[in-house]
């Protein structure tokens, strides 16, 4: 199969989705110790995904299309909104506040999924088209040079 930003990053979304649900299910069951670990795994994977996009994909897209104020700006803004919710989830786990965690995770899930929807429906296909020739090399840099884990 040809290299594609769409396939690569959509698959990463699905991987993050799995980790998100694991953490939420454990909180739902009151399984706090496991939940702490699952949330950490989810946050690691997701923050890494954000950084890969913000370090490699967005600048390449902006450089090629000349749209620094376009779709990438919104995607960046939503990353920031999610980072705030990540903090809430961490606090809720520390406080063992099940009700608040489930409310925050519902909000995060919705924000995350509509964000993924926009990326998968609009931004990734546009990027594959706009960056055409550069895609294989860009993907390689994304895989190899992903920033170190936080």
């Amino acid at each position: 199969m040809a290299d594609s930003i769409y396939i690569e990053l959509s698959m990463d979304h699905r991987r993050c989705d799995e980790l998100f649900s694991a953490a939420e299910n454990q909180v739902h069951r009151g399984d706090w110790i496991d939940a702490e670990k699952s949330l950490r795994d989810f946050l690691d994977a997701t923050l890494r995904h954000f950084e890969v996009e913000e370090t490699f994909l967005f600048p390449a897209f902006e450089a090629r299309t000349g749209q620094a104020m376009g779709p990438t700006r919104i995607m960046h803004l939503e990353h920031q909104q999610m980072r705030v919710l990540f903090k809430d989830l961490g606090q809720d786990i520390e406080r063992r506040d099940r009700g608040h965690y489930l409310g925050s995770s519902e909000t995060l899930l919705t924000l995350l999924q509509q964000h993924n929807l926009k990326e998968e429906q609009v931004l990734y296909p546009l990027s594959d088209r706009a960056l055409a020739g550069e895609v294989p090399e860009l993907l390689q840099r994304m895989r190899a040079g992903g920033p170190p884990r936080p």
Partner: protein
Amino acid sequence: MATAALSLEQAPPISVPLRFFLTAPLFGITAALVLLALGTGAWTTRWSAGALAVTHLMTLGFLAMVMIGALMQMLPVVAGAPVARVRAVSRVVHVLLSLGTLALAGGFLSGKVPVLRLALVLLALAFIVFIGAAAGSLVRARAAAVTVRGMRYSVTALAVTVCMGLLLGSGLAWHWPLAVPELTALHLFWGLLGWVGLLVIGVGFQVVPMFQTTPPYPRIMTSHLTRLIFVTLLLWSPAKWFAGHSLLVHDSAATLASLLGLGYALFAAATLALQRRRRREMPDITVRFWRIGMASLLAGAVLGWAGLWESKAASTSLEFTWGILAIFGFGVSVINGMLYKIVPFLVWVHLQANPGGRGKLPNMKEIVPDRRAGIQFWLHLSALLLLAGAAWMPRLLAYPAAVALGSSNLFLWANLTGAYRLYARILASGISR
């Protein structure tokens, strides 16, 4: 490409979708009041003034009202193609659709021709503006997306539905001789199995796996189902129109109609199967509403098959039950469930973007508490069962059904306006700070 790329920024202001969402339950309440006023009188035949008024209060005032608001919101997000002049379009369409629907119901109930004529003009204008705006956006949208295809078929089906509806209405208002039974069949199939059904399927392919955390729909289904249903509707229409001419044409129409039922039954079965495999263990109110919707779709398909192949005309009770399953059991359930995701999220996201939104903000479950949505869920389910029951036992159940329908919509309205009031309060406190 440039327009599509820019579009992610142009999510419309919160007033655009909310005006439609907050109005819809008011039409549900109006329908309940009409049912209360008429008692068993509404249930004599599906052609009665009361039945026609209530049907259109629900299909235009509730279903189309929310679907139009949701499309205004979703077109930029899912299709990457915002609606041009979205504020003005939504304001105009909202007013015309609201007044037109009230006038239509009033025209049916009063039998006054001028009221009916006014309704037809208002509704024609509402749909010309909306379909024009939506088509402009859908033409520019990326063709590849499964959901965009569903939306295109759906809006095309809406155009057919509206034309048939206007024709039927003009027949009443200007006393034209029309083939009313055939036109009505076309009007309601294009409306329910085209406009409503194809939008639910097209959007469902996308949102069920993502927001209800299920595995994806089978590829073969997402690539072909909406097109097959649309083409079947196209083939069925002339067959139905000429069904009286020969037995062969009549049977072709019946076969095509059963295929439509099969298409929807497959979608419902797939959705229910996927929901059983959802990743989240936490109960989800939207999933529960969708389960009722899909069960109604399956029941409707079975009833449809049973009714189709009966030689004599389907009984009044059977016809009522089919309509209730399709409009209320399927359409209203699915839409009601979606509102509990869309409205709290819109409130949350718009609070984020406002100066009053700094500091600790309520999350979605604080914006619409689960308990309150849960109560409305049970009211909705009771309304569905009582309405279906009233189709068979109007004397016993006509009033309880009307009361349940009214309470469910009142509660929905309270839940949605509660979310909006919270939004307005936080915004005001932020500005005064």
